[in-house]
């Protein structure tokens, strides 16, 4: 009996370390492109062509960053990205919970109809509506402004986010709302004073998703912005790439600078992004 127990324990030990080895290998693969990016960004021109490649170039050629910055106005693009993303965040945070409240805490005829109608729009490819949408913004004279990228987020922020917040609101007991109603509070008051303060976790979560959606958006800026001085990073980096893409060390210096805000965001948000999926019950 003792023998059997031992061998079983041994097998578990072997299995655990096998899993560990596989995971270390996979993790390495997943960060490899970024190590390669960082390493390249510090290489001297001639070091690019060495075989086998140098992993840790020395001395670090900071000059690549200086040279890149002369052609790649990183801070201007960064500022533009921040404006677009900030505007989207503001819009979603104002409108999304409001809509979710209407879908969760008010009992009205047609609520379920509209709710499922909203969910069904998730199945609609964005490309289908893009041409008339573009024409609307063109008629309004909004082309080459940030408005087409920001204003739509004041309209609820999309079915996915509204769904998330609505699911969260559904977990708040109706008694709480009813008690406030008995006290004579109107729905707007209940929303602002009772529900919103309780909703901080889910508001934080939708902020993260909104940030990613706006920051990573390439297609929107591509069709709406024409003036280079208005480009966000999403357009600035590909533009530099198409012009100077073969200066690989400078190119990777630009890519590194572009990825840094995402890394900072990730350090702040990773716990919530990875655990967040649990609170929201996306698997329904």
């Amino acid at each position: 009996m003792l023998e059997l127990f031992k061998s079983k324990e041994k097998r578990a030990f072997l299995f655990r370390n096998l899993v560990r080895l596989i995971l270390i290998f996979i993790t390495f693969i997943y960060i490899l492109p970024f190590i390669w990016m960082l390493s390249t960004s510090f290489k001297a021109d001639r070091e690019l062509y060495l075989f086998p490649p140098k992993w840790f170039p020395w001395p670090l050629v900071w000059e690549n960053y200086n040279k890149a910055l002369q052609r790649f106005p990183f801070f201007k693009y960064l500022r533009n990205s921040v404006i677009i993303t900030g505007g989207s965040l503001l819009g979603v945070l104002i409108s999304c919970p409001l809509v979710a409240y209407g879908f969760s805490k008010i009992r009205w005829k047609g609520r379920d109809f509209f709710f499922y109608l909203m969910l069904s729009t998730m199945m609609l490819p964005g490309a289908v509506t893009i041409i008339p949408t573009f024409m609307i913004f063109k008629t309004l004279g909004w082309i080459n402004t940030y408005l087409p990228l920001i204003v739509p987020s004041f309209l609820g922020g999309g079915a996915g986010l509204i769904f998330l917040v609505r699911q969260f609101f559904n977990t708040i007991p109706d008694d709480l709302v009813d008690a406030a109603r008995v006290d004579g509070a109107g729905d707007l008051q209940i929303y602002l004073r009772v529900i919103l303060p309780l909703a901080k976790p889910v508001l934080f979560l939708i902020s993260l998703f909104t940030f990613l959606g706006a920051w990573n958006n390439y297609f929107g800026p591509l069709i709406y912005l024409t003036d280079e001085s208005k480009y966000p990073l999403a357009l600035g980096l590909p533009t530099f790439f198409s012009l100077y893409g073969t200066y690989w060390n400078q190119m990777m210096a630009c890519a590194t600078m572009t990825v840094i805000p995402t890394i900072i965001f990730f350090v702040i948000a990773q716990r919530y992004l990875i655990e967040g999926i649990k609170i929201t019950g996306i698997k329904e």
Partner: protein
Amino acid sequence: MTKIERKEFIKGLLFISPWLIGFLVFTVYPIFASLYMSFTEYSVVGASKWIGLANYKKLITDFLSLKAISNTLYYAAGLVPVGLIVGLVLAILLVQPLKEILFYRTTIYFPSIVPAFAFATIGVWFFNPYIGFMNNLLKIFGIQGPFWLSEQWVKRTIILMAQWGAGGTALIYMAAIRDIPRELYESAELDGASAWQRFWHITVPMISPATLYYLVIATLGALQIFDLPNIMTGGGPANSSLSFVMYLYQNAFRYGYMGYAASMAWILFVISFILTMLIFGTTRYWVFYYGARR
């Protein structure tokens, strides 16, 4: 409706009005407007002219649109199943009880939030045939790596690159796997079920709702693939990486053929709808809701 009901109805509508306005202006109207436009010859400036089905006829005879459709189906046929397998394998590994598991989870998840526009440029360098990382690595093993962005390879390379974003799918599967009651595995083990049998008869059916979600989202995403090919190759070489949405974009915003592009948008809508319906139509054969009556 009674008076109170009407009051509540109006209040409900008011609360959802931001979404409702967006829905009417940016969803309902564009769907019908692009349907109308698809029957016209219409550029950004000037009046539109009714031309009947000519755009749709062009669509099935235009060499490039056929190429773009076949490329896109190739992308979808690669991205959806490969992404499912990679995401599921990652999820299974990432729920194992190891002390440092959070480190692996975090690191593997990170690339999935890196913007595609940045990852595309890194990828072109990583897969550079002469001095990129991949072929240098292969050279060490005496293998002459392919031209990753050549006509023959480019679509496969893009499908491969998309797997760096599989962390998102892995998260969904991890949540689903962690919700499976332990007793199911314990009793199966007592009955002598092998690891593979436990996976196939417990894990796979128990996570099938997550698979349904993945299939729908991934299929819609794959049909609209744009960022990676547009930045990495611009559709080349010889249009071998040109996706349907890229061709739509070029027609609408580069050449100003809005009517033609609108007909492409409608075809995309129809293809997406058919594929989504196919997925939903088969759910009763393979999606299993634990605890629900069958």
